[in-house]
């Protein structure tokens, strides 16, 4: 078997909300049921799972994906506990299928019932003794990277605002987005929003919301018998610089994180950036979108915001980016958020996106994390031929 004989056959995205009255385990199960129904499969068809265990009710010694065997009432041939989900889970699942450990893998996760009001989300406050006392929440780590970039390329601030306004406006038009109907936005709206941590205002930064997301992965051979056009894995790459959110990210080291992973993924796929029709980048903030254009080889160093503006990243642009509204306006569900990127990429490649459909989309990028997190991963997905 080859990499491109691994197919995503089901996607499930629960309602995405600012605050849910369900818990993380419930939304993960909701998403799993939606993805299996979408795939035309029963839960008894699953023999591998990458879902960690959002609890409650996990095994005392080591809660993890194995706990799902009890909840789903099925034996499993393979489990994976990747952190985060999204691309690392997809690569794990592909490995499990390619080595014969499983035939049909469920990836599901999300968060619900965990966000409080008024302060930054708990999962954005690293508990480390050399981080927490200084108030360095996750957006601050990204901000310390951004400040060095803007010292070198001050004009990028305006481009960041344009990027955030574009993606948030796209999200505003998506009725399923957490921020549906809140736009449209201008770059000036972004610049004028309340500051959170310089250079970022509230509108430069992603949401913290609640919901679940899941995908089902199997072989292309099986996928041919299922309801939707199969979407296959063309290539993938991952990088981990160091432990996230402890030692602060250094601009010179992390600005191009993803470049090595992208070269690997494009080489596996036998294509280049110009072949990509839609980019589901990991938009934790406005500058990260520009950074990924640079790191992934769409443009040169320092050209990310200019590239975004010249190319057009809205639905009417040449490279529609974060077409569901992204983490900025659709939803960010913690460790499950990267799976939302896979879900939107698959829906675009199937042609299911309605008003936000990218015409004729054949190749999509889905990505996870970024410079301040000090790890990055991406997958190239394509319509099966």
């Amino acid at each position: 078997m080859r990499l491109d004989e691994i197919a995503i056959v089901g996607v499930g995205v629960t309602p995405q909300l600012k605050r849910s009255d369900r818990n993380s385990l419930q939304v993960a199960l909701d998403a799993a049921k939606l993805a299996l129904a979408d795939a035309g499969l029963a839960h008894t068809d699953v023999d591998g799972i990458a879902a960690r265990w959002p609890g409650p009710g996990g095994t005392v010694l080591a809660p993890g994906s194995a706990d799902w065997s009890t909840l789903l009432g099925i034996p499993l041939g393979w489990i994976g506990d990747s952190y985060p989900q999204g691309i690392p889970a997809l690569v794990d699942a592909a490995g499990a299928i390619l080595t014969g450990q499983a035939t049909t893998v469920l990836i599901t996760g999300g968060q619900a019932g965990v966000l409080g009001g008024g302060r930054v989300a708990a999962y954005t406050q690293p508990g480390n003794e050399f981080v927490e006392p200084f108030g360095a929440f996750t957006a601050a780590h990204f901000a310390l990277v951004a400040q060095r970039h803007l010292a070198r390329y001050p004009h990028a601030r305006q481009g960041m605002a344009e990027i955030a306004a574009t993606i948030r406006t796209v999200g505003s038009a998506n009725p399923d987005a957490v921020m549906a109907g809140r736009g449209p936005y201008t770059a000036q709206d972004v610049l004028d929003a309340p500051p959170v941590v310089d250079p970022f205002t509230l509108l430069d930064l992603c949401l913290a919301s609640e919901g679940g997301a899941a995908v089902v992965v199997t072989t292309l051979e099986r996928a041919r018998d299922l309801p939707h056009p199969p979407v296959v894995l063309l290539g993938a790459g991952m990088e981990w610089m160091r432990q996230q959110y402890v030692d602060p990210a250094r601009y010179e080291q992390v600005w191009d994180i993803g470049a090595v992973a992208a070269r690997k993924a494009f080489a596996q796929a036998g294509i280049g950036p110009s072949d990509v029709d839609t980019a589901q980048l990991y938009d934790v903030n406005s500058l990260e979108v520009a950074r990924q254009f640079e790191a992934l080889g769409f443009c040169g160093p320092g050209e990310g915001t200019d590239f975004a503006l010249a190319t057009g990243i809205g639905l009417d642009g040449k490279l529609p980016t974060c077409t569901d509204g992204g983490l900025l306006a659709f939803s960010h569900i913690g460790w499950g958020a990267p799976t939302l990127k896979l879900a939107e990429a698959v829906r675009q490649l199937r042609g299911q996106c309605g008003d936000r459909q990218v015409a004729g989309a054949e190749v999509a990028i889905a990505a996870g994390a970024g410079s301040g997190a000090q790890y990055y991963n991406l997958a190239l997905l394509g319509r099966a031929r």
Partner: protein
Amino acid sequence: MGVDAALTGPAAGLTDAFWAAAGRRELVRPVCRDCGRSFFTPQIACPGCLSENWAYEPSTGRGRVYSATVVHKPPSPGFVVPFRLGIVDLDEGWSMLAELVGGPDGRLPAIDAPVRVTWTERDGRVLPAFTEDGVTS
């Protein structure tokens, strides 16, 4: 979801000496006795040569700002905003996150601005912070 403190807390005895020194308003950092490297955050072995033969040594507390920002939204109760947060590269070749305090007009120090250690207190704990020298040479 519970977090296993045995996995996420510091190794026993690893950082006690750092905080004890901070309590005396002395800044220290791990120095490898085999390869001479200064490193931070403290680890059970030197990230350069993996030797466990390292010890805390005093720092001059002088360095330069690598990056700096202003935090406007309190990360948790107890933080008064706005406050300034930076990454400081110490002269001995190590770096750390810390609050930036004082300085000329309370401004945000520029990248590469020289700073020296000073001390603040939060929740009864003495924390290192850095301030611009305010002297141009």
